[in-house]
């Protein structure tokens, strides 16, 4: 292990320890009624994940999230490559896509609910709405930033357009596209969860919201912990792959 990677690991461990310590201190300060202690939360989490009903909720969320991510990737790459090649379309549409990124998209969810009905498809559509934007933007940038000399080499070798994409564009644009996929992954997850929190009868977001009505602090904190740990772990993994891809080029 290189020193810098060892340093990063140490930093992450120190950080996690500090966060757990702050959590424990807050628990001692506020008391039983407001917070569950780290240990109690872990115990509850262990009990919860072995429960049959929980598996149903988890599967539901993961299915919506999975479908949404696959759709985001497919649509994002197609639109991204199209806009990357077609300069006029890019100049016209890119600022509009950037603008959508900054709006409170949750307010659009009722429209999706009316269009798709209360169910998996509305959740998927909302996940795609979040995830597709970064994938498009990073892919466009990746295609645009491909070094002209690589394209010229391809022309000299008389590559067909499909060979060009397969052997030159895709490998050259891969690191940046991967960054887009990483961000898209995170945002798709956020989108699917938000959809469940507003209106649904199943899923992790639903579990979070029912916890409020039941005043079940342990349930809320356990589900939040699971979501945070999952998102942070996957994104750290993707981030390290991302760094490796960028170093190679």
């Amino acid at each position: 292990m290189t020193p810098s990677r060892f340093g990063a690991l140490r930093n992450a461990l120190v950080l996690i320890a500090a966060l757990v310590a702050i959590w424990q201190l807050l628990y001692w300060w506020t008391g039983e009624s407001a917070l569950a202690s780290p240990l109690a939360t872990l115990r509850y989490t262990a009990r919860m994940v072995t429960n049959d009903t929980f598996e149903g909720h988890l599967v539901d969320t993961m299915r919506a999230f999975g479908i949404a991510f696959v759709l985001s990737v497919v649509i994002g790459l197609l639109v991204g490559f199209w806009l990357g090649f077609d300069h006029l379309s890019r100049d016209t549409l890119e600022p509009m896509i950037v603008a959508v990124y900054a709006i409170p998209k949750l307010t659009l969810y009722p429209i999706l609910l009316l269009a798709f009905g209360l169910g998996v498809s509305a959740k998927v559509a909302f996940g795609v709405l979040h995830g597709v934007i970064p994938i498009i933007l990073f892919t466009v940038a990746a295609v645009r930033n491909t070094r002209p000399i690589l394209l010229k080499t391809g022309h000299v070798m008389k590559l067909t357009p499909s060979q060009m994409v397969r052997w030159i564009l895709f490998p050259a644009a891969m690191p940046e596209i991967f960054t887009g996929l990483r961000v898209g992954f995170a945002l798709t997850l956020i989108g699917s969860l938000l959809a469940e929190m507003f209106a649904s009868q199943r899923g992790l977001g639903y579990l979070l919201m029912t916890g409020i009505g039941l005043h079940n602090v342990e349930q809320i904190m356990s589900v939040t912990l699971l979501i945070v740990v999952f998102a942070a772990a996957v994104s750290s993994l993707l981030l390290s792959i991302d760094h490796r891809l960028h170093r190679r080029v």
Partner: protein
Amino acid sequence: MSRVGVYRLLVIGAAIAVLEALCLAGVIDKITMQPPHRIVIDLFRLLASGKMNAAIVKTLTNTLISLVLALAVGIAAGALLHRHRALRDTLDPLFATYYAVPVFAFYPFFIVVFGLGDVPQILIAFMLGVVAVIVNTLNGLDRIPPVLLKTARILRLSPVATALRVTLPAAMPYIMTGIKLAVAYAFIGVIGSEFIMSRGGIGYEIGFAYLNFENATMYPLIVLILVASIAINAALTRWEQHLLARRGIR
């Protein structure tokens, strides 16, 4: 207007025209969506009636509070972390993965702890924005040309004078990026949490209208939020570009 600008207007115009046609032809039924011209008329009527004034004021107040908090804490924390290398390195994994974690997942927890008032919403909006401010402040401070700081030392400026006259102006274009993101996140945080669960505000009104099938209220409010957030963001982006251009970056 540039050629691209004209195309952009054409695309938006065509999209609205298609929606209008589909609504009038009955392909999209009335329960799903009202024709765009109706939405605009309803929006003006809704704003003129003053029914939404309280909700608008509430949302704007909470957004402003969380924005000010995010900026104050974010810039102060950025300045502090810039001086303490070890602390910064330790927090680096947090910053790197922060926006991958759904901050809204903490909202139910905050509701249980603080009650269903303004505090959970402000906290969520603050949490969404503050890290963007910290990261961009750090980035700005990293990029201050050393010669400026040397000049400040030669002129024997006090630390406060250095901060106000040299450091802050030099880092401003980058901090501006953080401010722009914090504004967007403040709106997203407040309106989003109002929408998920709350007792008032524009997001709440949209959710309420949805649950009661009041499309005549829901669509105008959605359009209002879209137009407002896009306009604010466009203005801030323009200001940011102006700052960057003046500094010759870009």
